[in-house]
């Protein structure tokens, strides 16, 4: 009988990633968030290539030029120019590296360190684990921006110090959520069943428990990413982070504050970029979490 398996079985289970996409694509907000976020990401990566001018180039003949859709605008400067005659489109594009690229990096590093320590803490028991937990509770009771401010005050305002501060602030949040998730899963029956299968600790950690806490990790990563973006922008706005000539979105907002009535577009456009990025990340994270949960619960 050649291959009689196919007689009564035609249904193919989609791969986990594909079924995740199938769930996501039914939610229009999630799809919109994916497009906006990928657009921002693409703009960030391609910014040196697509930006029409250097972000620092000054055009003395066109100071405070309105955007191109305005009656007085020129198509040469799509988003207009600021009070020093710098092309705003180039600055917003170049600013994506500071306002999206650096937070991505900080989140990745914090996630790597935080998840490792959290997993270790979640698998340990007794005094070791409770000491860590109580210590983290103290750190977590302080708002992240305040903690970052304290670190900046010690290290001094500069881009690399901001990065260190943000990363350090994000790590305890990762440890805390991953630790709690592991702690909850550790005594469930399927983990005991796997333990009784004679699995090694490493296998138990990475293959048995970790796939079941992806929702927590996804939530935490998106939360950390939006926090990092907002914190870097806030520190830039306060003049403690990225320093003035660099086209960071928060710094641009702070600079345009003086002339907001004269040249509102220098404030609105970077602000809009910041808003759309954070919103898309939050919506994306939330729908990703829902999709993962739904995939497990069944179609």
């Amino acid at each position, binding site marked *: 009988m050649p291959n009689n398996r196919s007689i009564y079985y035609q249904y193919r289970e989609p791969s986990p990633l594909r079924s995740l996409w199938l769930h996501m694509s039914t939610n229009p907000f999630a799809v919109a968030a994916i497009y906006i976020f990928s657009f921002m990401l693409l703009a960030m990566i391609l910014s040196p290539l697509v930006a029409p001018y250097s972000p620092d180039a000054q055009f003395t003949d066109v100071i405070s030029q309105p955007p191109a859709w305005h009656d007085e605008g020129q198509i040469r400067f799509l988003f207009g120019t600021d009070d020093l005659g710098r092309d705003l489109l180039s600055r917003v594009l170049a600013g994506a590296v500071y306002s999206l690229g650096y937070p991505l990096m900080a989140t990745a590093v914090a996630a790597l360190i935080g998840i490792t320590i959290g997993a270790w803490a979640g698998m340990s028991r007794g005094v070791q684990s409770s000491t860590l937990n109580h210590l983290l509770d103290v750190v977590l009771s302080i708002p992240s921006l305040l903690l970052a401010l304290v670190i900046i005050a010690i290290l001094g305002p500069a881009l690399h110090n901001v990065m260190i501060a943000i990363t350090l602030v994000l790590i305890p949040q990762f440890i805390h959520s991953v630790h709690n998730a592991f702690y909850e899963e550790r005594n469930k029956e399927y983990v005991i069943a796997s333990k009784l*299968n004679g699995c090694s600790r490493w296998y138990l950690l990475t293959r048995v428990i970790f796939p079941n806490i992806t929702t927590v990790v996804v939530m935490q990563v998106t939360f950390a990413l939006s926090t990092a973006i907002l914190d870097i922008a806030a520190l830039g706005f306060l003049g403690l982070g990225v320093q003035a000539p660099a086209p960071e979105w928060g710094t641009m907002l702070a600079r345009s504050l003086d002339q907001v009535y004269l040249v509102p577009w220098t404030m609105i456009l970077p602000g809009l970029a910041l808003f759309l990025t954070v919103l898309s990340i939050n919506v994306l994270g939330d729908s990703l979490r829902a999709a993962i949960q739904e995939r497990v619960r069944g179609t």
Partner: protein
Amino acid sequence: MTDLLEVRNISKYYSYKNGWLTPQRVCALEPISFSVKRGETIAIMGETGSGKSTIAKLISGAEVPSSGEIFLNGELLDPNNHQQRCREIRMIFQDSLRSLNPQLTIGKQLLESLLFNTKWSAAEQQEHVYVTLQKVGLLPDHFDFYPHMLSSGQQQRVCIARAIILEPQIIVADEAFAALDPSIRAQIINLILDLQEDMGISFIFASHSPEIVKHVADKILIMHRGKMIEFDSTQALLTNPKQQLTKMLLQSEQLNKALKHTTTQE
């Protein structure tokens, strides 16, 4: 016939911390001893909270005993060495869905135990999983299914497949039939009886249902508040129960029937 499994003075205490210094010790199981012969079926009966599940967990290694030893074929079992134990003693949990990992396919979960306990090649392992799935009345196609895609009877079959895949000598089941409806329960019990006959497995199970116990068990162990109050062959306990509780537990069903009978007549 020699004793396959010997349990000596095994007990379990849980401690709860109420304050700073004095943890409260709660006794789940007082020291008990018994032995199981090869191919024998032992039922553990008792009220809720009488220590049935604790015995099952201690034997399978899911919990570490507070005192006492377990010998398998005269060899002492280390309570923390799961690798030594899992080749010979396997457990079927009460809730089949909760004891299956929701994020892994059935096949991967069954491969798990082969991965850590055999030195077979990947193809041999896969083949063995297919054979085991067929033994419990599932299809090789179920390899790629996730647990939530199966019915509760099929999930229980997967749990049985996981229990027999290493060809153990003892299977411990903790109320494995309670959640199933009667027809599926009958199927699963017959399946276990067939497997027991084919593979010569000793079977230890905790159960509420006197019918299953009477149908399946060679010996019955009656538990009451963490103590073993009777342990004898099914025949002896049915005809000549020494304790009132034994009588109650074994005859509860008939009692119900009698009551129903009288109410319908009135």
